[in-house]
C-alpha cells in the first residue's frame, strides 16, 4: 500500500507540473498569437468565452502572475479549456471528449497486444540465444527505426485503395452514425486494422529487445541453475523461473515508454486521418489553434499518468516484494 501511495503522490505532483508547464508556455513566448485570433472572431464570441481565453493564455496584463495562476487552476478544474478556433465555436473540452475514446481504444489495444507479442517473442529469443531467433533482432531493429508515420504511408500505398478491404482514412464509414450498432462497430474495427497494424509493427521490437536482454541476464542467476538441477522441464524453467523474473523490469519499462508510444500513435492518427486526439493536434497545429493544442497536451499527459498508475498496480501484483512492506 505504501508503494502505491508513493506512486500516487508522484503522479499528482507530475500532473501539477504538467499543468504548470502548460500555464507557462504561452506566457513565455514573446507576442501573443491568441489576441489576433480573438480579434478575428470578435463579434461572434461571448464575453465569457473571451474571458476564459484571457485567463488561459495570460492576456490580461494587469493581473499579477500569481492571480493569473490561481484563475487558471480554477478554470482547468471546471473543465473549461477555452474555445477551439478550428471548430469555432465548440469548446475544446467537447472536442476532446469526442476524440479521446478513439485514441484510447486504438492505443490501448495495440500497445497491450504489442507488449504481449513482443514480450513472448523476447522470452524465446533470450532463452535460445544463438539460435535463429537472434536473426529476428536486426529485422525488428530496422522496423523500429522506421518512423511510425512513414510506415503508415507505406501501408496505405500498398494495402489500402479504393478496391481494397482496408480503408485508407477515417475512423468509420462516412454514412454511419456513431453508436453501439453492429454495422458501426464493424466499420470502426475495419478502419482501425491498418493503423493498429502499423503501430504494432513499429513498437513490438522494443519489447522483444528489452525482454531478450533481461532474459539473458536473468538466466545466469543461481535460481535458474537450481531449477535446471532439480530436473524441471525446460519449458517450466523458461516460463515460471526466468520469464517471470525478467518480466518485472519490462513492466516498469512499459509504464515509462507509454508517453513515447502515445507520441508515435498521434502520428499514425494523422496519417490515417483517424478521428482521435492526434488528428486534433494536427488540425490545431495547422490552424494555429492554441487552445486546442494546450487541451490536447493536457489530456494526453493526464491519460498517460492514469495508464502509468495502472502499470504500477500491475507491477504490484507481479512483484511480491513491493507488497510485503505494507
Amino acid at each position, binding site marked *: 500500500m505504501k508503494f502505491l501511495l508513493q506512486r500516487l503522490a*508522484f*503522479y499528482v*505532483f*507530475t500532473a501539477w507540473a*504538467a499543468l504548470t*508547464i502548460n500555464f507557462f508556455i504561452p506566457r513565455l*513566448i*514573446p507576442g501573443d498569437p491568441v489576441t489576433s485570433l480573438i480579434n478575428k472572431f470578435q463579434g461572434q464570441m461571448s464575453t465569457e468565452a473571451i474571458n476564459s481565453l484571457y485567463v488561459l493564455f495570460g492576456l490580461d496584463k494587469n493581473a499579477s502572475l500569481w492571480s493569473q495562476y490561481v484563475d487558471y487552476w480554477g478554470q482547468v478544474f471546471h473543465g473549461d479549456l477555452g474555445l477551439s478556433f478550428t471548430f469555432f465555436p465548440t469548446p475544446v473540452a467537447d472536442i476532446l471528449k469526442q476524440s479521446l475514446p478513439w485514441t484510447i481504444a486504438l492505443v490501448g489495444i495495440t500497445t497491450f497486444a504489442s507488449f504481449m507479442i513482443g514480450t513472448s517473442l523476447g522470452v524465446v529469443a*533470450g532463452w535460445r*540465444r*544463438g*539460435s535463429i531467433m537472434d536473426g529476428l*533482432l536486426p529485422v525488428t531493429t*530496422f522496423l*523500429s*527505426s*522506421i*518512423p*511510425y*508515420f*512513414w510506415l503508415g*504511408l*507505406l501501408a*496505405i*500505398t500498398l494495402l489500402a485503395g479504393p478496391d481494397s478491404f482496408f480503408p485508407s482514412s477515417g475512423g468509420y464509414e462516412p454514412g454511419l452514425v456513431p453508436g453501439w450498432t453492429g454495422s458501426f462497430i464493424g466499420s470502426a474495427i475495419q478502419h482501425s486494422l491498418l493503423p493498429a497494424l502499423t503501430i504494432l509493427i513499429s*513498437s513490438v521490437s*522494443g519489447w522483444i*529487445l*528489452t525482454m531478450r536482454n533481461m*532474459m*539473458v*541476464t536473468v538466466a*545466469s*542467476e543461481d535460481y*535458474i*541453475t537450481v531449477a*535446471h*538441477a532439480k*530436473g524441471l522441464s525446460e519449458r517450466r524453467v523458461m516460463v515460471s523461473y*526466468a520469464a517471470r523474473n525478467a518480466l518485472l523490469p519490462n513492466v516498469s*519499462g512499459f509504464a*515509462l515508454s507509454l*508517453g*513515447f*508510444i502515445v*507520441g*508515435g500513435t*498521434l*502520428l499514425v492518427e*494523422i*496519417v490515417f486521418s483517424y478521428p482521435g486526439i492526434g488528428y486534433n*493536434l494536427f488540425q490545431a497545429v495547422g490552424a*494555429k489553434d492554441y487552445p486546442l*493544442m494546450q487541451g*490536447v*497536451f493536457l489530456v*494526453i499527459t493526464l491519460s*498517460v*499518468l492514469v495508464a*502509468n498508475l495502472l502499470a504500477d498496480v500491475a507491477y504490484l501484483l507481479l512483484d511480491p516484494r513491493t507488497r510485503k512492506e505494507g
Partner: protein
Amino acid sequence: MSAPTSTITAVTPEGPEVPSNPGVPAKRRRLRFIANPKAATGLVVLAFFCLIAIIGPWIAPYDPSARSSDLIQPPSGKHWFGTTHLGQDIFSQVLVGTRGVMFVGLLAGLVATALSILIGVSAGFLGGAADDGLSALSNVFLVIPALPLIIIVASTIPSAGDLMVALVIGFTSWAWGARVLRAQTLSLRRRDYVEAARATGESTWRLITFEIMPNLTAIIASGFVGTVIFAVMSEITLAFIGISTISDWNWGTILFWAQSQQALAQGAWWWFVPAGLAIAVLGTALSLINFGIDEFVSPRLRSSGHTKVKTKDGHSVRMRVGFTPVLSSSREPVTPVVRRRAEEEVA
C-alpha cells in the same frame, strides 16, 4: 521505437569472451569495440551520413527548390529519385536535407547528454535531498509525453529554425539518460576506489570527473546515441506535420510535401520512399552502435558466434543461456557438467 534502445544496467567489465592469445599485443583490445560487426556497420553508415551532411549541398545535382518542367516524374537517369509536383529534384532534396537532420540530431543529443550528466550524476553522487529533488524532476520529464510537448513548444515559438528545434528537443529528452546515470553513479560512489580517493582528500568535483565519470563512459555514449535517434525522429516529425520552417530542407519536409500533395493517391512512391528509407537506415545504424556498446559492456548479450562447441571427447555442446561461452585456449575444454546433463536430457 520505444524509448530505451540500450539496456545497460551495470558496467562491471567482464573478461573478454574470445580467448586472448598471450602473444597478441594489448593494442588490439582497444579496437575490440570496432571489431564488433554490429558497431562497425553502424559506425560506417553513420560516417557516410555525416559525410553527406557536410558535402551534400555541394554534390547535389540540382538546387532542391528549383522548379522545372518535369512534374512528378518517376526515377530516371536525369532525376535519380524522381521529381515533385513542382519539378524539384528529390535526390537533391534528400542530399541537402541530410545536413539539417544530422545537425539537429547531434546538437540535441549533445544538449540532452550534457543535461543528463549534470542532473543524473549529481543526483546520484550527492544523494539526500538533492537526489530526491533531481530524481523527481527527471521522473516528471520521463512521464510527460515528450512529443506532444515538443510539438506545442515548437509551434508556439514564432520561427522554429533548426537551432531552436534542436534546443527544444534537447531540453525535453534528457530524462532517460539522467535516470540511468543516476542509478549507475549510486552503485559506483561507495566503491572502494572512490572511498580511497575521498580519503586522500580529493575534492567532490575531482571525484566526479576523474573517478566516477570514466566508469560511466559506456552509459553516456549509449545515452547519447539513443537521444540522437529520438531527436532525429522528433525533428522529422515536426517537419512532417508542418511546424518547423518549411524553407529549410530536411527529410521531414520532403515527406510533408509528399503528404500534402497527395503523393500516395498519385502513385508517386518515389516521393516518400527515399526519405523514409534514409531515416530508417540512419536509425538502424545508430541502434546498431548502441547494441555494439551494450555487447561491449556486457558480453553475455552477444548473439553471434560459437554457441555450438565441439568438446574434446567428441560431444557437441550447444552453449545456452545462462552462461557466457568461455573458450579456453588450453587443451582441456571447459564444460560445466551440470549443464551438459541438462542438455542431454532435453535432447
